[in-house]
């Protein structure tokens, strides 16, 4: 029953997008984190999406879901601010902040929320079509 598979596909999209939203939330929450005792500040993270065939699907099966393959870390150096009175300052008086770019994260958040909504709409449509299919032959 191929309409039932839509729930798997759209569900995989919803869960992947919510994972992306989680990572964005973590990045935004740590936007102003300074370097900890180990000297390294929080690094911004990003999810990497990958097409995932449904369980039991052959190579000829066309429709496919999505999954998060890896969460990659942005390795660029963090923002350095000269503030000798800050408790986290190093010997030269610089404080290292995380390398999160709040503008990028906000854009990422809007994109994730739009895609999430699209997948939810797909599920709602499939649900109403299935319910109508169940009523074939009833007056």
């Amino acid at each position, binding site marked *: 029953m191929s309409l039932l598979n839509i729930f798997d596909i759209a569900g995989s999209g919803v869960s992947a997008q919510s994972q992306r939203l989680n990572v964005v939330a973590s990045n935004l929450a740590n936007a102003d984190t300074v370097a900890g005792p180990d000297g390294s500040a929080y690094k911004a993270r990003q999810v990497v999406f990958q097409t995932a065939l449904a369980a039991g699907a052959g190579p000829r099966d*066309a429709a496919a879901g999505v999954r998060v393959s890896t969460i990659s870390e942005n390795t660029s150096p963090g923002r350095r601010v000269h503030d000798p009175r800050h408790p986290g300052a190093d010997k030269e008086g610089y404080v290292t902040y995380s390398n999160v770019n709040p503008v990028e994260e906000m854009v990422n958040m809007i994109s*994730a929320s739009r895609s999430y909504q*699209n997948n939810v709409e797909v599920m709602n*449509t499939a649900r109403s079509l299935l319910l109508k*299919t169940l009523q074939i*032959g009833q007056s």
Partner: protein
Amino acid sequence: MIARLTESFDFHSQALTLRAERQRLIAGNIANADTPGFQARDFEFASALRAASGGAGPGSAIAAGVMTPGGRSAPVLRYAVPSQTNLDSNTVDMDRERAAFADNAVKYESTLRFINGSVRTLLDAMKSHHQG
């Protein structure tokens, strides 16, 4: 006798299966809207239905044995031509996919109504004149 009664459903049930298949395909495209390198796919409904029903129209009888369930060949998939280039070479055009999804949902429902109509016609024909 039963086979002859249900013959008229075959065409519409074939169309319904293909509509469900297309709906699933478009759902996959929408789910992969942000996947790098994903190529959006779709199939042409008319030619797929012609291939599935052996060129038969809604009124014509279909030879037995052609319509074996599961023996239907998979429709030929085509790749979408991107209207705008994307940096991650993803070719899902969300506006087009959403339009196709809504269009396909409406057509799925209309096929359902055709089937419902023929079921009701058959049931009416089976009723005796004593019943309302």
